[in-house]
């Protein structure tokens, strides 16, 4: 009943879900952070280097769920397909859905933290290191759910 072509269909669907849903959250977070950074530069044009620096560091962390999604998507697109079954099909779709939706929340959350850090540096540039430290600790914790989603997506793909 289930043959190679159905397995390929399921992995294509999974890849699309993973990257499609997974791009929404990080993109929103990145845009929100850069809008706050623009406001900060508008308010304190002489601190533009510090504001840009903290924006880029935070955005690198915010981007990571999108990169996890890309990884799972590429794995689903080009990974090998073994023993076709309905369980295998659903596992491929589930893997894509898991990583896609799992990247949404952490992307938005890390972007909020990054935006507030940009505002903070614009208000008090001399406390840049303290704000950076708080931002990175908070982002690391908020990132953990995307790592859980990555683990489950890997398990679904491989096991």
């Amino acid at each position, binding site marked *: 009943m289930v043959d190679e072509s159905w397995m390929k269909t399921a992995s294509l669907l999974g890849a699309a879900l993973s990257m499609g849903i997974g791009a929404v959250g990080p993109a929103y977070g990145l845009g929100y952070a850069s809008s706050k950074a623009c406001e900060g530069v508008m308010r304190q044009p002489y601190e533009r280097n510090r504001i840009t620096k903290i924006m880029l560091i935070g955005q690198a962390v915010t981007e990571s769920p999108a990169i996890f999604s890309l990884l799972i998507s590429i794995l689903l697109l080009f990974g090998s397909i073994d023993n076709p079954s309905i369980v295998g099909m659903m596992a491929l779709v589930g893997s894509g859905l898991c990583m896609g939706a799992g990247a949404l929340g*952490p992307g938005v959350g890390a972007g909020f933290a990054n935006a507030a850090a940009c505002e903070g540096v614009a208000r008090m540039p001399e406390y840049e290191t303290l*704000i950076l430290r708080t931002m990175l600790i908070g982002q690391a914790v908020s990132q953990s759910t995307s790592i859980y989603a990555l683990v*489950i997506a890997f398990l679904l793909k491989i096991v």
Partner: protein
Amino acid sequence: MEGAEIIKAAAVLGAGICMGFGAIGPGIGEGFAAGKACEGVAREPENVNLITRTMLIGQAVSESTGIYSLVIALLMLFVIK
């Protein structure tokens, strides 16, 4: 058996949905907490340790729903036959 195979198929799809959607809320909530903590540090830098402690306690509580999702996803993957 066809029936057992369909149950297993539903379980693996369910595990993906469970962990995926379960990760949305904690991610947003914890990021929100981290953002407010950054604002707080920018306003009162001398209280940085207190603010970081409060942020981490709040995030740990908000993380718990993400861990529930993880547990249920693992149960669906490995326990349901």
